[in-house]
């Protein structure tokens, strides 16, 4: 990411600290990854877990889900996914440039 967009992102993060803190009270952690390079931008987990989450969830599974949705209806696109497992729940929110994943 270029320096300008990095600065813009820092500003967004600073603006949303209240929200982040509210979410973090309930959540186990979050991961923010960049869409184009599948690289880690921000996380509250340790690096290995976060990288694992990105590699399996954010990049490969999310792409498949997005292509399924567009296959079913070309005008539609994916807004949000909730993956509920026995132990946790993952909330994945894909945006244009990045993807936010929260683990409950």
């Amino acid at each position, binding site marked *: 990411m270029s320096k300008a967009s990095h600065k813009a992102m820092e500003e967004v993060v600073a603006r949303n600290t209240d929200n982040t803190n509210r979410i973090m009270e309930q959540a186990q952690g979050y991961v923010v990854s960049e869409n184009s390079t599948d690289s880690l931008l921000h996380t509250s987990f340790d690096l290995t877990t976060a990288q694992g989450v990105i590699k399996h969830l954010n990049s490969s599974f999310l792409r498949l889900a997005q292509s399924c949705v567009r296959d079913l209806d070309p005008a539609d696109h994916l807004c*949000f996914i909730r993956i509920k497992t026995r132990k946790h729940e993952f909330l994945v929110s894909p945006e244009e440039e990045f993807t936010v994943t929260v683990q409950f």
Partner: protein
Amino acid sequence: MSAEIEELLKRYQNYPNVVGIIVLDPFAIPIKTTMDYTLTVHYAALISTLTFKAAKMVTNLDSSNELVNLRMRTLNHEVIVVPSESYIIIVIQKPGT
């Protein structure tokens, strides 16, 4: 087992926001549906692959964990998938709020 499925279908169909319900067997063949056939088959094929991949991914991330539920919110609908041993249930609903 089919009595259970009928009861489920009846219960879910009564919700005002539900657009369609599809019940698949473990081989992703539709056994019960409330939508037209082509759309059902389309959904069955795509969603079953997706669910299988999701279940695999969950066990990849943590081997003691298992997929319980998958909810996808798109612009126009919300698709809820519940996989289990003997069938896969797909419910498509209009987002209420």
